[in-house]
């Protein structure tokens, strides 16, 4: 089946089964390997993307379910000023270690900040609870989000 997806601000055509996992289409056909597969079961959040404003695990949705909504992956998001603020905040806070969770984590941060541009720590923890990180212990990531919200004042 043919699909036209709005992917990182561009219209792109794909031909696949509507049941194909969005994650496989993104990583395979579209070559967007910043979207990671950590579990394939909706448990780790490494495959997080934005569907419109909503954070979703791309391993849990089928291509046929998303055709009408814009998709943002880390590749698209990393071209924005907001990303630069988050990236620098992650760097300053020491929120990146092995990095495998990081792209998904950053997408989760963006989804949170879109809804709430001055989140308090418990709100940040709740928003990130679907994204596993085994390296950092999370506190440094929470710090990074607070820093980004402060330094990126007006951006969100």
């Amino acid at each position, binding site marked *: 089946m043919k699909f036209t997806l709005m992917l990182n601000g561009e219209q792109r055509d794909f031909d696949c089964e509507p049941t194909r996992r969005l994650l496989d289409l993104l990583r395979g056909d579209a070559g967007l390997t910043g979207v990671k597969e950590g579990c394939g079961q909706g448990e780790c959040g490494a495959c997080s993307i934005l569907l419109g404003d909503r954070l979703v695990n791309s391993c849990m949705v089928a291509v046929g379910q998303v055709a009408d909504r814009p998709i943002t992956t*880390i590749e698209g998001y990393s071209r924005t000023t907001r990303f630069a603020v988050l990236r620098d905040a992650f*760097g300053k806070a020491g929120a990146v*270690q*092995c990095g*495998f969770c990081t792209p998904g984590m950053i997408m989760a941060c963006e989804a949170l900040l879109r809804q709430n541009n001055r989140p308090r720590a418990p709100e940040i923890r709740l928003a990130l609870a679907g994204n*596993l990180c085994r390296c*950092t212990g*999370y506190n440094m990531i929470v710090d990074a989000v607070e820093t980004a919200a402060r330094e990126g004042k007006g951006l969100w």
Partner: protein
Amino acid sequence: MANSISQAVERVDNRAKASGQTRYLADIPREGVLHGRFFRSDRARARILDISLPPVPADCRVLSCGDVPGLNVVSFLVDDWPVFAGKMVEHVGEPILLVVGPDVEVLADVVAGITVAYEDLPPVLTIDDSRCTPQAGFDFTTGDPKAAFAAADRIISGEYKTGSQEHVYLEPQGMLAIPRQDGITLQGSMQCPFFVRRAVHRVLGLPLEKVQVVQTPTGGAFGGKEDYPSVLACQAAVAATVTGSPVLLVLERDEDIQVTCKRHPSRILVRTAHDSAGRPTAMDVDITLDGGAYTGLSPVVLQRAMFVAGGVYNIENIRCRGRVLATNTVVAGAFRGFGGPQGIFAVEMHMDQVARELGISPLEYKRTHLVRTGDQTATGGRYHSRVVIDQIADRLEKLSGFEEKFKTLGRRPGEPGVTDQEAPLRGIGQALVLHGAGFTGSAERDVIRSTVKLERDDAGRVTILVSNVEMGQGLQTTMRKIVARVLDLTLDEIDFPDPDTDRVPDSGPTVASRSIMIVGKLVERAAEDLKRRRDEPGTISAVQHYRQPSHIQWDNETLTGDAYPDYSWGGVAVQVAIDPLTGVVTTEKVWAVHDVGTPIDEMIVQGQVEGGILQGLGWASLEVLEFEEGRLRQGTLTDYTIPTAFDAPPIVSELMDNPSAVGPFGAKGAGEVTFVGVPAAFASAVGHALGVPVTELPIRPEHVLDLLEGLL
């Protein structure tokens, strides 16, 4: 911090990782690779009677032990671990066949069509089974424990148990094997490229130099990518050799959880002798570890568990016996702390018990008996470097207010029923720990024999050539900082390619908190060499080999002497609140004080502290791995839960300023010491809150409720 090298910098890999540009193994685009799916045993122990295959498409191939060109064994310490099962299977999940081909879905169909006829044999499932056979055993004695026990005023005994743990590195294990005209190349997520090279060389029967191993950016490891990558590399290498095509094996998460190595479950008996003042005069420790089906690295894990007998206490007479028993379960292997957390858990819980029996605060009791510089180690060596565990304990007490909280929180045994039945029960616990950095005894000199190389080109750029890998711990940044500091360069004037065994010398594996202290020191010396020769034109290189400090003495037969080149130290306190209705334990706060020598980067060390603490809390509470008839009950991330952002408590952390003579700029190992004491401190806090000793990990809500019930 006194030393400015400690000042945090932005990690060199931050940008590429944050933007998703870092390419891990599964991200590298490639054409024409074959994928693989395993057919694995669903029996804990059985003889294979017959294998029947469905029709296999022409572009697929089914591989078994008969296809292994060399030895059908994955090289660790003992040759007992087959690449593919032969006549027997020894654990659920053991690979029998590997199906490779271009289309993953077709592979899954082929695997689904395979049938194997087994003759089931009675499995040995736990170390409590008397039929267990040993994989390793050691015994050492320091001083005269017999005499000390005979003369004791009081003898206190306890039994302590810990459970299994899965690493859950976020990137699942993966390996690519590419056949070449004259050899083979392996690329993958790993800690130890030269371990992988040796394993593949024996399995393919190829000379070592025909096997090239290249590490790809590694998405977490925690010890889990020390041993298992050799298994996966051997399997991929056999498939690539037989088919003549590149073969990519990336484990699915469930498969990764079910088949890769786990932390060793332990059962440890501790007995101490005390004089009339309560002083510990002797400690007898008897350790049993569950090694799973094959030996793997278990003997060395056992040694580490044994060498922390006596903990951080000045106990003159020590006897320690230990054994690893084989069971028909998934193989146990390397995991952050490498036996240390099990040994420390037993010793620390025991010291708590002693203090309880003597009727004094555990921290006060421990502080009275700490080792000092120059004291004897458990194995009869000496603490040669300055020991500041007393200052660590002081700081820990000040930061956490331990003694005050120990008095005000917690229930005391025999205390009349609490009036408010629903009020949370609070408690505080602590642990004081040490962790030897580097390989045991003289292994750095006699077995590992690290060599490092630096190259400087005519433009002044320097390349670091070592076999140690970045796996999240920050090595790309810290190694560069060492070189930059010596040669007065910026970090971007230094290259540090991911290790490729064709290009880098063998500086040893990325394990045992050794990369900075041992390898970093060699890198520092090589950089100093380049500095002395800075006027030499063209491209020059500097090579350094490991030299054991002359004061380190070790006897590998009797296991006596200096077990480690130097030690990192730590103290950790944990405060918990327990819901008496549900038994759920919440960690309210953690305080940690560490001596890791000079931190090469304060923020990177902070990352090890925070990550190690949460992983330790996970092992102590949430992370339950149980076997039922040899099969994991928690075989997915849905059942096996690890801490989330919601579970991370606030952490107050301090570092002591205590430069080591062994490591570069005074640095020591920092990756493991942050983990080892946390489970004990957590258990101690739960015990304090409940007013009864806790002797077993993990502590689940149902255990807490049982303990509470027993109190009413």
